[in-house]
């Protein structure tokens, strides 16, 4: 096959490169590296840094929601002039909500999750010496880094950071007169996102090319670990949808800077009629959600891929229904492109479109249900090893089910009308997308930490981190369903303007307590992470007794990943507890024994 020959040629070429191995200094090793493993770690550390900012912001606005318009010195400490006498300003409340969303969705759960694990695992698990283009890969990271810097800088501008919600709908985001956050902060937001999109495209193209062309001998598509399937499909989603967001962002910039009217029409503001005419704000929403909905799966699929791998390895069982799992990834990915309108049921779009989007949206529940049931069947009659990664993966299945179920309500246009933009939605997407994805990310970090740093993370701290996170996260988000059913809108600085919500105040206080404890629990993780990088016990080569190829590489990182030849693959990645085998795992590079059926 032609792919095989290209792969071999490529490997020869890279073997050749390795002979000219030269000493590296700090800059070439840690900063301007083109090694996929180091780039993965760069994404992780940057993503974690952004995650700390994003989570701290949520602590601040949770404090405001629980105790509206009350004075807290801590608010003045962090927010300065935006919290005079410790009372949070409504504008900065909206800015915190906006930047929290932006950071968590894009910087942590897109770049931090997909960037980290696609980079680390694609070459290692398919048996390649590196990414197709190491340079593009490094470029992808540095665009992401620059984008993060711009986003952080935007927090400090005079008029405050972007504040129109993470979806930045115009005209609110387009007109600096509409709110302070739509001034310089919004410009920086758009610049940051543009850089981010470039980063994402460079990365995704690289992942796709690498998976398609650089698999080692014997690694057919149907023998790929599910992680790789998830990363691959995620990259395809990104390549197809991020350019649309780029165009949305560019047109918004034109409206802001060049006076065009793509999204604006008939606006009276600040005592005068503005000169925009003929545009439609709803056009922006179509463009935004054409990315925005696939984005949900760009976030979620890598987490599902990671948990598939972790659950199979630690149940010591093959993942149940491998083909159905791949099929459901593909089905979810396909459907994710034709459901974006369910975010727009109340924009006044043609009712017929609403019907179509309801239909396609509810269809997604079918492949999602298949995935959930297959995870549970994988646990059945397993021999479960409760590593912290495994705990997080099981928690992911729980949140995926809980959050997915409320999607059946929100996807139904007739029901969405009454809970659209209420806390019911906040509960839904935080549980199904936020928690599931962050659990997948934690599972990935705990599971592949030995591969990244050659050391083990502390198990007991991992357990403490897990239980505190699992309990408090449900404690934060589950009660929000009830707030939504009481009709409480999201993004309200204070609920005191409506006496009908007065009896919900207690629930909000409870949620804030859970949020603060849960946020503090993340310190355990951060401490464990950095402590273990330098002081953790040395890792064995294959600490979890896994089958996939990354565990055949030496603990110490080398360019090209394998010191000798690239391993050849003879079987799928899920031969756990196979009858007839001596151990309860059979790595992919072990040839079939005589008379052994390939099973899968």
């Amino acid at each position, binding site marked *: 096959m032609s792919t095989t020959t290209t792969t071999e040629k490529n490997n020869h070429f890279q073997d050749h490169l390795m002979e000219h191995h030269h000493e590296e200094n700090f800059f070439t090793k840690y900063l301007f590296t083109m090694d996929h493993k180091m780039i993965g770690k760069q994404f992780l550390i940057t993503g974690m840094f952004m995650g700390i900012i994003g989570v701290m912001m949520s602590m601040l606005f949770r404090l405001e929601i629980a105790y509206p318009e009350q004075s807290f010195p801590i608010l003045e400490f962090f927010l300065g002039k935006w919290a005079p006498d410790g009372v949070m300003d409504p504008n900065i409340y909206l800015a915190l909500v906006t930047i929290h969303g932006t950071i968590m969705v894009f910087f942590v759960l897109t770049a931090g999750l997909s960037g980290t694990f696609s980079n680390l695992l694609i070459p290692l698990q398919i048996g390649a010496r590196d990414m197709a283009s190491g340079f593009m890969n490094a470029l992808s990271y540095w665009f992401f880094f620059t984008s993060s810097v711009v986003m952080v800088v935007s927090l400090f501008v005079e008029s405050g950071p972007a504040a129109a919600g993470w979806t930045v709908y115009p005209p609110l985001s387009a007109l600096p007169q509409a709110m302070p956050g739509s001034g310089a902060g919004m410009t920086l937001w758009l610049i940051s996102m543009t850089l981010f999109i470039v980063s994402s495209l460079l990365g995704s193209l690289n992942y796709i090319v690498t998976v398609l062309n650089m698999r080692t001998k014997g690694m057919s598509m149907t023998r790929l670990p599910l992680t790789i399937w998830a990363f691959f499909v995620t990259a395809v989603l990104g390549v197809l949808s991020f350019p649309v967001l780029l165009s949305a962002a560019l047109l918004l910039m034109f409206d802001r800077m060049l006076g065009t009217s793509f999204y604006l029409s008939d606006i009276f503001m600040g005592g005068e009629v503005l000169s925009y005419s003929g545009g439609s*704000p709803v056009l922006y929403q179509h463009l935004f959600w054409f990315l925005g909905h696939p984005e949900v799966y760009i976030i979620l699929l890598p987490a599902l891929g990671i948990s598939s791998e972790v659950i199979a390895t630690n149940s010591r069982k093959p993942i149940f229904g491998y083909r159905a799992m791949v099929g459901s990834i593909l089905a979810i990915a396909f459907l994710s492109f034709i459901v974006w309108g369910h975010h727009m049921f*109340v924009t*006044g779009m043609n009712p017929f479109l609403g019907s179509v989007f309801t239909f396609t949206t509810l269809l997604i529940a079918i492949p999602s249900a298949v995935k959930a049931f297959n995870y549970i069947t994988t646990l059945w009659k397993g021999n479960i090893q409760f590593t912290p990664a495994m705990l997080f993966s099981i928690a992911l299945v729980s949140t995926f089910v809980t959050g997915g179920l409320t999607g059946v309500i929100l996807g139904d246009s007739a029901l969405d009308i*009454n809970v659209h933009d209420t806390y019911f939605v906040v509960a839904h997407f935080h549980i199904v997308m936020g928690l599931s994805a962050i659990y997948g990310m934690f599972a990935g970090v705990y599971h592949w930490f030995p591969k990244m740093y050659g050391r083990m*993370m502390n198990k007991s701290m991992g357990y403490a981190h897990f239980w505190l996170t699992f309990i408090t996260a449900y404690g934060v988000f589950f009660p929000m369903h009830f707030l939504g059913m009481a009709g409480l809108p999201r993004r309200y600085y204070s609920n005191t303007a409506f006496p009908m919500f007065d009896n919900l105040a207690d629930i909000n206080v409870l949620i804030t307590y859970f949020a603060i404890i849960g946020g503090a629990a993340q310190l355990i993780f951060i401490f464990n992470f950095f402590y273990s990088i330098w002081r953790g016990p040395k890792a064995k080569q294959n600490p979890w007794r896994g089958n996939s190829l990354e565990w055949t590489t030496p603990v110490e990182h080398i360019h090209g990943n394998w010191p000798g030849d690239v391993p050849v693959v003879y079987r799928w990645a899920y031969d756990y507890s196979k009858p007839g085998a001596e151990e309860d795992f059979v790595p992919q590079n072990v040839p079939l024994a005589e008379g052994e059926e390939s*099973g899968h």
Partner: protein
Amino acid sequence: MSAVSIIVLVVLVILTLVQVMRISEISSEIQKGKDNDVSPKDNDTQGRLMLLVGFGFIISVVVMYIAWGRHSLPEPSSAHGAEIDSLWNLSMLIINIVFFIVQPILFYFAYKYRGKKGTKATYYEHNNRLELFWTMVPALALAVLIIWGLNVWSTLMMPENEEEPILVEVYAQQFNWTVRYSGGDNELGYATVHEIAGANIVGVDTQDPASADDIIAKELHLPVGKPIQFAFRSQDVIHSAYFPHFRAQMNCVPGSVTNFQFTPTITTAEIRQNKDVKAHVEEVNEIRKAKGEDVWDFNYVLLCNKICGAAHYNMQMDIVVETQDEFDAWLKEQKTVAETL
């Protein structure tokens, strides 16, 4: 001061963690041979915790339903609202059945199949019939929900009227609502942002004869039992007119007019006698009394539900649903555009 104490607190937390680490390190050195691997004892503990916390979560969901279920919106006050609520109840029933079956199984399996020494997992890679089964069951349940949902949706969006609906405009600006009644001709006069000036806040074109009998008001009065056709406009950013008690919501988009129609079925006076509403009002007033705030009486309310700027959280308008006679009397008191502009 408190900033300093917070820094001190953070430092203390970190120091505590460092100490905890040291202790665990020392103790692990004492128990030589024990490394960081997951032991059968760990599997046992974590498996039991899975069962305990998992079922704790499921029970707490039941507790939340009991404790907070009553906070949900009272019975719908619009004709179509009843249909939405029936569909809502069926959907909730289905998802709760799935939730209370799947979650216990997940946590029970995690507990039941926790790793034990000397056991081996069962090699079980797929079962087409089983997979087909749990593809078809959700598909069937969803088919019901989709068909019913689309049915309700089309009655909402394309209502068939026996009588001509009353035309009312809801007008949004940062950060308040205005309403405009179409008057005797049931036709709204042409309006545009270019006409906005002084008292003419909604930009009515006074040259348009249809505008003369239009009535502009700051409170939304609706006659009970009459279909109301709403036209929504905004002059600046996107707002969303949210009528939770009527199960209705529609965005107000600058540059275009959006529509929604509903028929109020319960007057304000009647809903105040509803026992759920009474209990709600009582509960709220106890809280308000404790805080020294005014006593509240239930009113239907229109909220803004699309982020629109600093005072988004306080963009509201009272809605009064009344009998036809009361409505006519109220409308008569209002001044027409011809009188005011």
